[in-house]
């Protein structure tokens, strides 16, 4: 992964919120967010598949939006709020999308699953998927070589209203 900083090239300080925790880090400018998470912060739930933005295994949420961590330079995440697969469960309870993936058996080998789940959470936040067909289209940035697509779509379909309910409960009386 990242080379050692040659003379004259400085590491850059960044501050970010990672899974709810404030972090202050020093990063060489060529370190990707994916390598930062996996190699320096031991958050190996985010997977390296193609490393070219084509498979979606590295999908994480930046400021609530799903992105490919493999094509994101860590230095450009200064000030960002990041959520990885490790940050979705709260108080020991799985996220509604995680529960739906288990209930629908929406994986086989599981390698793409963290990216699929983060992508699905982002899809619900974005709020543009109102049909099964739209879910299929808007999950197209996540490949599953085992071919669990049918069950993935079913899981996302089931989790969507549960997530919205949870958001409404957290949002209080906002109707």
């Amino acid at each position, binding site marked *: 992964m*990242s*080379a050692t*900083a*040659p003379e*004259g*090239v*400085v590491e*850059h300080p960044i501050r970010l919120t990672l899974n709810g925790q404030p972090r202050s880090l020093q990063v*060489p*400018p*060529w370190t*990707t967010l994916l390598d930062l998470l996996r190699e320096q912060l031991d958050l190996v739930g985010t997977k390296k598949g193609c*490393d*070219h*933005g084509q498979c*979606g295994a590295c*999908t994480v949420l930046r400021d609530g*939006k*799903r*992105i*490919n961590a493999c*094509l*994101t*330079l860590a*230095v*450009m995440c200064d000030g960002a709020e990041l959520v990885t697969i490790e940050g979705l469960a709260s108080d020991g309870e799985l996220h509604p999308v995680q529960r739906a993936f288990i209930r629908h058996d929406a994986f086989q080998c599981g390698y793409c699953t963290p990216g699929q789940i983060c*992508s699905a959470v*982002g*899809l619900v936040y*974005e709020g*543009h998927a109102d049909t099964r067909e739209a879910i*299929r*289209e*808007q*999950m*197209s*940035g*996540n490949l599953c070589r085992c071919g669990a697509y049918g069950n993935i779509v079913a899981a996302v379909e089931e989790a969507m209203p549960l997530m919205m309910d949870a958001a409404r409960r957290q949002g209080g009386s906002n109707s």
Partner: protein
Amino acid sequence: MTPFSYHKPASVSEAVSLADASSRFIAGGTNLVDLMKENVVRPNRLIDISGLGLNGIKATSNGGVLIGALVSNADLAWDPIIQQHYPLLSEAILAGASPQLRNMASTGGNLLQRTRCYYFYDTGTPCNKREPGSGCPARTGLNRIHAILGASDACVATHPSDMCVALAALEAVVHVQGPASERKIPFADFHRLPGDAPERDNQLATDELVVAIELPPPVFEHHYRYLKIRDRASYAFALVSVAAALSLDDGVIQQARLALGGVAHKPWRDTVVETMLAGQAPSQALFTQAAHTLLQGAQPLSHNGFKVTLAQRAIVRALSEAVLGVAAGGTTP
């Protein structure tokens, strides 16, 4: 990745002052970071423009829209003003890339993604675009995805953007800031055909920054179609794509716009065919004639002859669906 230095300027003028031939601006990074990983591009210095505040979509005094260069592809596609008044642009953007990439990629960066092919990416092979003068293996090699229009002996790569095909059809204008002044480049002049200098994809100088894209007042809100033909149902580059837009009055075409993606080094707009369509009543015969005229100069390679027929049929279908209007043609297949 080859090490580089990183700078995050606070103003457009500072960003431009930092730029030279060995530097690159970075916004979404979806193409640039990938090219850097493959050592296809090795800048000494990255200039991060994400803090420059070029994030707005606002109305212009003449009834058009000015889109900041840093507006993400997703925000642009889903923007209510764009969806209502420039639905061709929304449809094109949503036909491209993946949701993750559209969240990251910027409007300006979409224009500046490299015209490319797999030989350009493979540093183990020659490529005139990557290393001028080294040769083009695509001409005699695998060239199924390559250009059929406007190519040269030096390069047969295609510009992969969907957004840019719609911007070409909509006659967008690119606002560019250089060290001395700002200039406005009509979209048709922004990207280049390869000629004997395929290393240059566009007309920008190394110290010029795209700051905004301007759209003229909307004309094609009802009769439009972005039709993308690709090897799988989603998330693949176009083999051929067509942006078709018509304004109709009393059953007669007033204005027509027609641009193709996946066929040339730049978005391929044909104003001669557009003129041919204007003043005519839409018909299958007219559209077939237009399609044949547009592809007259096509020069297919050994593996991509199918693109000529595919493009002709896609043009006829896109124009026909544009005539039918929003209800029939407004969804992406």
